């Protein structure tokens, strides 16, 4: 299968950078420790802020560190390759091939995400477990739900990054939109602060945006805050965004190709 080959190639490609992986795990762990102490202070002052207790809050921090690279929250991954290929014009070579670009880059990004999950996801989690009191999923449903929600989170993130990279077809350089989207993603995914702490309409907005599917939703599933039908609903929320955004990718790519093909570029 072509897409399996593409994904495993991306996995292998990232696995050649061992030192970068070790340095990244170290960084994730340092930030995990800093955030954990900050959250512990916050939850000491306000012990059930957002409906989390102190253990939930620290768990949220370490899950966030684990997902950060897995979903490539602030950019990177296969979509950076795409943006670069658009900028240099090498994307023309992709167009000569009888393959669908969205599927190709998605497969590649899933391969990358698998590698980052197994290294930059698992390793800091183990360190967090050793240093702090962290909650584990309290039911098989929560564990299974979490396992399902990670690939969905990656697809949502991929689709957003793919759309951002596609702006290079018009702007030639996608770094402006990339930085903007990265900032939005950090804020609205729950990475900087759990969305449950956002007040009123801002909280409602944050939870409805696709960014929440990248960190907040998987974390809440792990923490057992979605059960039964609500768990299915949370996964459906992710899957819905994933599907809608992938369709948007297809559409934007068709527009871009048409522009290239009709207007030249």
């Amino acid at each position, binding site marked *: 299968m072509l897409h399996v*080959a*593409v994904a495993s*190639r991306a996995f292998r490609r990232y696995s050649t950078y061992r030192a970068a992986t070790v340095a990244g795990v170290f960084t994730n762990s340092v930030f995990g420790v800093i955030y954990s102490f900050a959250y512990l202070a916050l939850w000491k002052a306000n012990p059930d802020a957002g409906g989390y207790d102190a253990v939930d809050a620290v768990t949220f921090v370490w899950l966030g560190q684990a997902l950060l690279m897995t979903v490539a929250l602030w950019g990177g991954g296969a979509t950076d390759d795409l943006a670069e290929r658009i900028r240099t014009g090498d994307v023309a070579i992709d*167009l000569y091939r009888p393959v669908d670009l969205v599927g190709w880059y998605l497969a590649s990004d899933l391969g990358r995400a698998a590698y980052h999950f197994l290294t930059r996801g698992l390793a800091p989690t183990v360190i967090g477990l050793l240093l702090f009191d962290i909650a584990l999923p309290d039911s098989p449903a929560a564990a299974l739900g979490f396992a399902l929600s990670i690939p969905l989170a990656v697809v949502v993130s991929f689709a957003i990054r793919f759309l951002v990279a596609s702006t290079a077809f018009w702007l030639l350089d996608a770094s402006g939109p990339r930085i903007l989207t990265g900032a939005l993603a950090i804020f609205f995914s729950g990475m900087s602060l759990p969305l449950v702490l956002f007040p009123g309409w801002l909280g409602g907005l944050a939870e409805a945006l696709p960014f929440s599917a990248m960190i907040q939703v998987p974390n809440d599933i792990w923490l057992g805050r979605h059960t039964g039908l609500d768990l299915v609903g949370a996964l459906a929320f992710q899957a819905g965004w994933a599907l809608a955004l992938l369709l948007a990718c297809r559409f934007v790519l068709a527009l871009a190709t048409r522009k290239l093909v009709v207007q*030249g570029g």
Partner: protein
Amino acid sequence: MPLIDVSGLERTFVVRRRAGFMRRTRSEVRAVHDLTFSVETGEMVGYIGPNGAGKSTTIKMLTGILVPTAGSLRVAGLDPSRQRTELAQRIGVVFGQRTTLWWDLPLRDSFELLRKIYRIPDARYRENLDRFVELLDLGDQLDTPVRQLSLGQRMRGDITAALLHDPEILYLDEPTIGLDVVSKGRLREFLRALNAERSTTLLLTTHDLQDIEALCDRVIVIDHGTSVYDGSLAGLHAQGGSSRTLVVDLVDEGPPIDVPGARVKKVEGPRQWLSFPTEASAAPVVAAVAASYDVADLSIQEPDIEDVIRDLYSRGA
């Protein structure tokens, strides 16, 4: 029906230029204008022209990644831009300045990915790979990541990549750019053999006229988006009214040599350059010079195709 059939092909680009704050002017540039030619199966055609003549634009339209503004275009019976994916299975493209390989993968893995992209049957794939690896001498490089290959090795890798799915047409855009003489020679030899064995049709754009002389029986010269010459290489010489040159070294410096059938182009000390028509024999000119002058040495220079083409370009302009 010809394999490639181009008739009255047009392509204009809209260029918007900034003209002060928030104001833009819009102008149209005609990259290809009223271009007509056809290529039969098994031909090796050189497609040449100065920078900006419309070569790449034509190739882009032939491969379907650019839509013509007007005119008709058929490649292997398909409409390239509408049936791009289908056409992609039947053509191969090689760019001297870009690679279709993956930088971080060993050659073998790049080929393996292409096998899956083009759904090449296993037996066919293995047979082609073995053949090209042997012919292009890539055996030792198969496990090397592409980024570590030399330009010549990469180029051979790219050519293999373009041919694994048995394309009927191979487009080569500056395939020998940056290669040393030996690599160039080997590449040309390979392309000739490919054409002879499989009657793969070759369309070659290049600035290296030796590529053309070595490979192409037919050249199409394009300038300002339109064909200014289409025919044999020999005919191009005649068309250009090119001349041969007799270089005469006299024993002593003297006045310009005056013999029938030739005229002096240049004098530099005892050395003089006489030009005479390509179709004329050199013998009477040499005899006349030797009879009337004290000659130390003689040599004849054949006309340079580059001069002929330069001549064509300047006349087209």
